[in-house]
């Protein structure tokens, strides 16, 4: 794959997106912003439509539009006395409806639109990679510089505020960073699948560890592995790259659930097998309390 120019750009772009989304995913999961992420990503359809209808780069219009929607979600849920999920539901459906109407008026339903809906990372250019890198540095920079503030705010907003954490800045900053991350990720998986990139890595990390440091490491590993394996598979079998990356990510999540120390499914399976085998410790005293457990009839 790397012998082709488009393979190299796809890999570098994909890894940039994976690292940014995986880090963002941690905060999306612990702050319970998965629906906000989904809402903003679907609202991007409205932004892309504005760009296509107006003949402007759709990524630029989608970026501006998503930041606007993210700000709207924040403002309405804080000041407008509406629940966050309510305003997300309203804004994302209205944005999509606006996109459909705009495209119909501009008669702009075409192949280009499909690439925004489902992604086309193999068509990424080096210019796109540079844009991705700048956005990634901004998003990662914000999350690293304000990491302890973001963690405190996500855990206990009121005490964070009482401790001098600039809660408004951190909240809106997080929403805007989510919006920008989503927009740059559209190139890889498209509007419809982008929410997977910002939800699954964090959720996978949370299955494997109870310490936020390890959760972050597992989240990053999930994102990077999914891009590496997904791109290779899509290249080998000539299938859609974005969808393949998401499916690999989902498979890693399922594996994480299976081996999760939280649930201990695998431990129970192995324990069950061990229990089914004849006990080699004949003559040993029974485990404490085992005599009191009545046998099942």
């Amino acid at each position, binding site marked *: 794959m790397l012998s082709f120019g488009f393979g190299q750009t796809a890999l570098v772009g994909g890894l940039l997106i994976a690292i940014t989304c995986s880090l963002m995913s941690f905060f999306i999961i*612990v702050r*319970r912003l998965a629906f906000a992420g989904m809402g903003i990503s679907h609202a991007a359809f409205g932004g892309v439509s504005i760009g296509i209808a107006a003949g402007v780069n759709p990524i630029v219009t989608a970026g501006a539009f998503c930041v606007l929607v993210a700000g709207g979600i924040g403002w309405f849920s804080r000041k407008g006395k509406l629940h966050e999920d309510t305003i997300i539901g309203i804004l994302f459906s209205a944005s999509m409806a606006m996109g459909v109407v705009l495209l119909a008026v501009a008669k702009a339903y075409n192949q280009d639109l499909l690439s925004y809906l489902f992604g086309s990372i193999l068509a990424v250019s080096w210019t796109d990679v540079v844009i991705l890198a700048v956005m990634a540095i901004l998003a990662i920079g914000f999350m690293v*510089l304000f990491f*302890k*503030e973001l*963690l*405190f705010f*996500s*855990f*206990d907003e*009121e*005490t*964070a*505020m*009482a*401790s*001098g*954490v600039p809660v408004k800045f951190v909240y809106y900053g997080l929403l805007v960073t989510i919006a920008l991350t989503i927009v740059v990720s559209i190139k890889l998986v498209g509007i419809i699948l982008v929410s997977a990139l910002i939800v699954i890595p964090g959720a996978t990390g*949370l299955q494997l*560890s*109870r*310490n*936020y440091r390890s*959760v972050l490491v597992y989240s990053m590993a999930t994102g990077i592995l999914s891009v590496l394996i997904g791109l290779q598979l899509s290249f080998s079998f000539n299938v859609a790259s974005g969808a393949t990356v998401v499916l690999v990510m989902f498979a890693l999540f399922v594996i994480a659930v299976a081996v999760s120390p*939280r649930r201990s499914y695998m431990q129970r399976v192995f324990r069950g097998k061990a229990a089914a085998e004849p006990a080699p410790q004949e003559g040993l005293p029974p485990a404490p309390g085992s005599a009191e457990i009545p046998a099942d009839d």
Partner: protein
Amino acid sequence: MSNRPSKMHSCKVGEYFDATSGGPRTLIDLEHVFVELDGHPVLQDISFTLNDHMFLGVIGPNGAGKTTLLRVILGLVKPASGTVCVMGMQPAELKSELHHIGYVPQSVFFDPIFPVNVYDVVMMGRICCIGRFRFAKKADKQRVMDSIRMVGLQGLEKRLIGELSGGQQKRVFLARALCRETRILLLDEPTSGLDMPAQRQFMELLTDLKERLGLSIVFVSHDVNVLAQHADEMVCINRSMHLHGKPGEVVGSDRLQEAYRCEFDFLVGAGDHHTTEGGG
């Protein structure tokens, strides 16, 4: 409402910083504070002071505005009128002094699987000491461990916060409030939801810490009996000030029953109260 001042007044900084007066230093000073939320009056004409090393109990029935009062002191709610001085400054100017104030909120609604352990939660309390764009240093880590030890949770540093009992979680939040250079400790119903032995243990721990660390405490509770045994002074509010004085004076007053709209039966150490008009 008659003596409501028309505007906010500035703090008399000298009251806190001037050591020549000889009297106890005033850490918190509220004068004729009125607070409105969404156009509705929540607190009316509240005045009291917290001096150095004082344990002030704020009591009042549910919905009396006790939590709002703490939020006013912390600068999270701006009063409509009156004067609020904390360490000689208005709450909005307190940013550089926040490390002297510890706050234990009434309840923290966190996800039980939130991936932070006891150490991480207590470290959050150091945020105003560490500063922005900086990482925790060795001294910060040592302070966190000391605070965990002070509240008796040594050995549980690595435990997930969601796995602890309610009483242990309250101790974690107390440690978080203490792991800075705390001089004023604000506690919002920290014993609510705890059983009697856990309540007693918590109060004994708090009294001990107050003496050892020289803390000044504002303790908000709807439970008169918890505070009557430990506070130096008590304030009873129900939107407005009803009482202010020594615990014996407050507990024995008819105005307390008026504030709670119920009768109290103060047998020594018992402290059951019988509601006559629904739940206060």
